[in-house]
Each structure stands twice: as structure tokens, then as C-alpha cells.
């Protein structure tokens, strides 16, 4: 089948097996190696992308489900203000990440910044936990996201909340 969607702001079209994993399409056809195709079972979260604005494990998305959607990978996310905020917050909080999970973790954190409502601490940890890596120091990651929320959302939602 022909799969057409918007990838990192550009219209793309390709022939694919309807059940081919979106993660495979993105890695192998588009060379987008920021996402890893690791567990292929939706467990590790290292293949996350934004699909119509929602953070999803792309290994669990069949190609036909991507038709007509907007897909943003880490390569696209890196050009956003949210990325700049998240990256700076993680660096300043000393929440060092390894080269295997950093892109997914930044996107997970970015999804919190872009959320419609201010997330609670539990919600932050829930989202960060969707990416599994043994390199993460939980309190540092939480601190980084809090800082990112303060700097980017303070005006958006009001500090009183």
C-alpha cells in the first residue's frame, strides 16, 4: 500500500507493507536513526515519536495507521523551542542520559511541556518511565522536567497552579 504522511514537516509518500512497523519505516527507509528499534514490543520506549502530537512507541504502530498523520521524530523535535528548554534543563539539573535513551527521554519530557495542562509529579514520572534505561537517576530527571516546566510553562499556566 502507499502510505502518505507528514514527517518532520514534510509530505512523504512510500510503498510499504500495511503491517510494517513505523519504527522500521522511519529507520530503514528514511534513515532516522535517532529512534532505536530495540524491544519491538512497546516496552523500552526508545522508539517514541509524536504521532499527531501524541507520544507513541513507533514499533507498535503499523504503517497503515500512519496514513494521513503528522509524525515528528527526534530529528524534527530538535528544532523546537521545547527541545531547547528540555535539553538545557536536563543539562543544568545534572540529569545525564546515555546515548541510547537521551532522544526518547527528551521527547517524553517535551510531551509534558507541550501538554494542555500542568502535569503533577506522578504524571511526570509516569511519562518519563515510559522510556526504560538503567542510566536514569530518577530524582535528577524529575528535577530537570520541573525546571523545564517552570521556565517554559510559568507564563503559560501561571505559577499559582
Amino acid at each position, binding site marked *: 500500500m502507499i502510505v502518505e504522511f507528514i514527517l518532520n514537516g514534510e509530505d512523504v509518500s512510500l510503498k510499504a507493507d500495511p503491517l510494517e512497523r513505523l519504527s522500521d519505516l522511519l529507520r530503514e527507509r528514511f534513515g532516522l536513526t535517532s529512534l532505536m528499534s*530495540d*524491544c519491538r514490543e512497546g*516496552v523500552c520506549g526508545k522508539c517514541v515519536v509524536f504521532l499527531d502530537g501524541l507520544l507513541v512507541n513507533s514499533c507498535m504502530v503499523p504503517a497503515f495507521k500512519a496514513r494521513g498523520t503528522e509524525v515528528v521524530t527526534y530529528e524534527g523535535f530538535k528544532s523546537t523551542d521545547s527541545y531547547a528548554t528540555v535539553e538545557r534543563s536536563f543539562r543544568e539539573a545534572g540529569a545525564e542520559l*546515555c*546515548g*541510547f535513551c537521551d532522544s526518547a527521554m527528551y521527547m517524553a519530557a517535551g510531551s509534558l511541556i507541550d501538554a494542555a495542562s500542568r502535569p503533577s509529579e506522578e504524571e511526570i*514520572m509516569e511519562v518519563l*518511565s515510559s522510556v526504560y*534505561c538503567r542510566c536514569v*537517576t530518577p530524582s535528577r530527571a524529575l528535577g530537570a522536567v520541573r525546571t523545564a516546566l517552570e521556565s517554559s510553562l510559568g507564563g503559560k499556566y501561571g505559577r499559582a497552579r
Partner: protein
Amino acid sequence: MKAARTSGLATVGRLSDFPLLDAVYVGTVRSPASRGTIRSISVPHLPRGYRSVTADDIPGSARIDNIGASVPVLASGRVAYRGEPVALIVGPDRLRVAEAVSMTAVRVDEEPASFGYETCESTRVVASYAAEGGSVEAALAKAARVVDGEYRMGPQDHYYPEPQGAAAGFDYDKLIVFSSTQWPFQTRDAVAQALGVGKDEVVVRTTELGSHLDGKLWYPSLLACHAAIAARLSGKNALLVLSRADDFMYTTKRAPTLVSYRAGLDDSGRLVAMDASVMINAGAYAPFGAALVERAAKAVAGAYACPALRVSALAVSTDLPPMGAFTGLGTGPVAFAVERLAEDLADAAGMDPFEWRAMNAARRGDTTFGVPLRKGSPLEAVCGRLLAISDYPRKRSSFELIRKRRPDPSSPPGYGIGLAFGPQRPAATLSYRDAQSPSVEVTLSKDSTLTVRSSVAPGSGSVTRIWKRIAATALGLQPDAVEIASPSTDGTPDSGPNAFSRRIGVVTRLIGSACEGLASKRFREALPITVKKTQRARSSRAAPESPLEDSSWGAAVVEVELDPVDSSPAVRGIWIVAKAGRLLSPEDAAKALERDAAVALGLCVAECLDLSAGPAEPGDFRRYGLWRAKDAPPIRVEFVDDDADPKGIGELAYSLVPAAFANALSQALDSPWNSLPTCRRSEGADRDS
């Protein structure tokens, strides 16, 4: 060696990013049986451009034998565990390779397999270590109280950030191997041997390791041999990356261990005798079996003095995939056991657990291991701070009151707090290939940039910063002027395996020493100047040392509360205090210990793998409960001031947190909890479901 020029082999960060242009994929055909004789390997008709590889096609030696054991590159004749590689399928399309692997039939005359290790035939014992000091029998006979205990720690998966694999390709006349290995020179030697070529014809470049938990000591060399053979026979770049499920089922796991004690106390509660037995399931081929038993045996007394000590440690070969290191080699399960025993002994003596530890901690001059200890364990300094920040004494007293006065003794008290104290032994060698001396090289170039070369990768931004800072300070440079070379066997000297805290314990010291040597030459010789520093191997004639000498020390407190409905434990907090010499980066050290404590707790309560009835099944991977960041309790880490040389802390949390957790759980349940992880399930029920 046959040369086939390729490109794009300069650097590869992650194996999965290996350039796939004109590459072949390598699929592994595995043994369907746990033990037996291979009758036939039937490969389907393969299309042009595809080929199969069996042991007969290996150009050089068919075995890896520089790991204290001899492991077949591809099984030939016999198989020793289910999932053992018996053949490779090599071809340009990943899916077709996978299809061919699934269609390849391996027939094995199966024999009864053995997976248990707690009792075994003597022929299964592949390594042993025994030592005795003092009259153990006499001391036990005279002891006021004798306590017996059995403590088990099961297998666990390292869950690497990327499944294991390797890539290989020719660059003119050299074979370049990309391997996520902790020990590139061991991998290089294994590949050269398998290809039957000189070591200088093979170059191993390490890809990003991530959190390896010492699981990538030797196994990557097996995969590197597979990729190298495929590259050699196909003349193309070859890539082999295991699926997550295959990595889970077939690569090394923490060796399951049973530690049994019979310990005697005198009237005052002082430890007078200890008879310890350690049984280790080393899996098939038992790599590093001798090192496993020796390191485990030397840890049985923990931090305590014992005038009469007998220890016997055995590594048992079973028909499971090879087992091995897990943040330390053999010491973690023993640290758990001895700290659980300490709690049981304190209970038998009617003493507070901390008071018992204070009474029995090894002091200066202690001769438990036959030679006087030069520096005693810093129990008061470490635990004093720990008890204060965790409020351990008050909480423990409160929980004891609850335990003793609960109205219904048949239900658990529900609250517990546990303490553990112990050493992390100094960066050790494995007694095999790395017995020669680790080296580091620094070069100051004409443009005043400094390059640090070590085959041990810094592995994290914090260690990179520390190395740069040390080098820059010694030479009066800016840290930005210091470059850390990527580890490779042709560009960095052999610094030994990247394990057992060698980055801090050995390499950091060598970098400082090399830079000081360079500084003394700087204005006397023309640039570039290169200085190489080597840590001399300890002479066999040197005076023996206590295994506790030069250790880093730590203590942990874990607080648990049981769910009133199902009695599952919820951890309320973890506190750790460590004494590890001069801290090169206090913030990074605290962060690392906090992260390790969170992972170590997850290994206790969530990550379950039962191999007692056979190797892991595909479903076991899905059921392996990964501990997520959201599950981590509050963790507080502090360090005690210490101006000694910097020491490693990488094993501390994995030794201390499990024991402190089990001690807390025992109080909360009012029943000893002597096995970890807590969620070990019955094999039959698990598999049936």
C-alpha cells in the same frame, strides 16, 4: 588476510547505527536442545548472495579460550545449552536471513539436561576454592550459640540499553570489528584466533557501552567472532545485532548463587567461627569460573572479624547459557548473604543489628584472612552518619514494638527497616589475560592539545569530565584542550577490562600519573611528547594482603511497609552513606549511587527470572518486570570525608541495597527473607500461564 576495501567504518556510536550499505546481516541458528550430540544441520536452499556457516567453515580456531574457559565459536559435535549457536546464515536482506534461520533444522540426540546447582555430580564442578584459618570445628563446638542460614540470589538480566551484537568489515588489509565490549583486547585476540590471523590484522573499536553492569566482559567477543567470520567469508561488512528477546534468553546472566553458613557466637555475641559454603551456577562452559569462586570465597566474612573461618566455594557447570558477572564477579550475592547472616546473628545474640556489627567489625590488625588488616573497617564513621540521616534507631525500635505487640501474631507486623554494611573491594584483575599491566598513554601535541588514550572508555560524561580536569590541571591546560580518544586496539594501549571500578580505581590514577610525567618533560623535549604509564602487576612474591585492604566502604538503610491486603512490600526510602576516598566529583558520585540504588532495588522486587527448571523462554522476557523510574522511592546519598586515593563505588549499591531490603522485609514479615529477588515464581506455574 583477504582484503576488501570498504568505507564508513571510522566510528560507529551504536551498533544499530552501523552503515548498512552493501552489508550482510548475520542470523544465528541455535541449538534446540540443552544437551546432546548434533546429528545434522539442515539448511534450506539459499538464494544467491546468501550462505550458511558452520564450525567447519571457521578459518582459525573454533574456540574462544582467553576467558578462563573454552567456549565454542559455533558448536560442533555437542551442544551444551539450548540456544547455543551452531550455525550462521549470512545474507543481504535481514528478513530473508531471519526466515532462513527459522527454516534451518538442527537435529540433536538429546540427553538429560541438568539445570540445578545446589546439589550436583562432582564432574559438574568446574572450579573450586577452599581456605581455612583457625579451628572451626572446635570453635563451633564451644560456641554459646550456633546459627545456620542459607541465602539465595537468583539470575538476573543486565537489560543493556542496546541488545548485544557486533559488526565487522575490512578496511584495506585490516578487519575492523565494532563491538560493544568492556574488553576490546580480549575481543581482538578472540577474533584473530577464530580467523587464524595475527592480532595486528584485527582492530576492535568499541561502540557505546551504556549501562553494562559487567555483563559485556566476554560475551561480545563471541558475537564479534560471528560477525568477523561472516565478513571474511562474504567479503562485505557484516552486522549482527541480537533481538531483545534473544539477548534475554541466550546471553550471560548473573550467576545464581547459594551461600550457606554455620556460624558460632560466644556469650557476648562475638563471632567466633564461621563455616561457609558457596555454590555458584556458572552455566555452560563456566567462563571465569575460577575467578568467580575465588572472589566469592574472599567475600564470605563480609566486613567482620572471625577467628576461625572455613570457606568452600564451587562453580558448577549446568546446561544453561553461560552465567557470569553482574556488577562485580561473584561478590554481590555473597554480600547479600553475609549481611542477612549478620542480622540473624544479631537476633540470635539478642542484640541490636548495628551494635552487633560494631562489635564484630574487622578492626586494624584483624587476621581473618591470614594476614593482618592494615586499616580497619570504618563502621562507626559510615554507619554513624547513616543512622542519623535515616532515623534508623528510632524507627527500628518502633517497628520492633509493633512486631512484638501486634494483636494478631499470625499477620505480619507490616513495617520494617534494614541495615547493611560492607566493602567494595579494590579494582581487581581476573587473573587471566589481564594479569599483565594496564596502561594509559597521553600525548601533548604542538598545538597544546592533549590526547588521553586508554582502552577503557570513560563511559559517562561525568568520568570524561573528571579525566579532562585531572589532565588539564596537571598540565595547566583548559579542559577543552583535552581529548579522550575512542577506545580501539590500534589507537589506545591495553588498559584491561572496563570492569570492577577500574575507570576510577586504575585508569584515573594512571592518567594523573602520566600527565605528571609529561609535565616534567614538557619544556625539556620537543613536542609532541608522549608518556605511557603502566600499573605494574602485583608480584607473586609481594606480601599477601587482606581482601579488605584498600576497599571503599558503604552502608545502606532500606525502609519497607507491607500492603495490608496482599503483603507486597513498598519501599519508603533508601539511605546510603559511603566512604570512597577523595571524591573527584561529589555530585556525580552521589548521582551514580542514587541511580544504582534505584536499579538495585528493582532487581530485588521486580526483575524475576527463574532458570531452575530450564533456560529462559520467549515469554519470560515479556514477564520480566522492569523497574521504572516512577517506582523509585526517595533516595538519599551522602559521603564521609576521606582523603585517601579515589576508589570505585560502582558495586556498593548492588551489594548493600539487596541486603538492607531483605533485612527490612524480614522485620516487616517477622520471618526471615533469605532469597532474592522476592518475586521468584514456581517454574511450572509461570510457564503454564
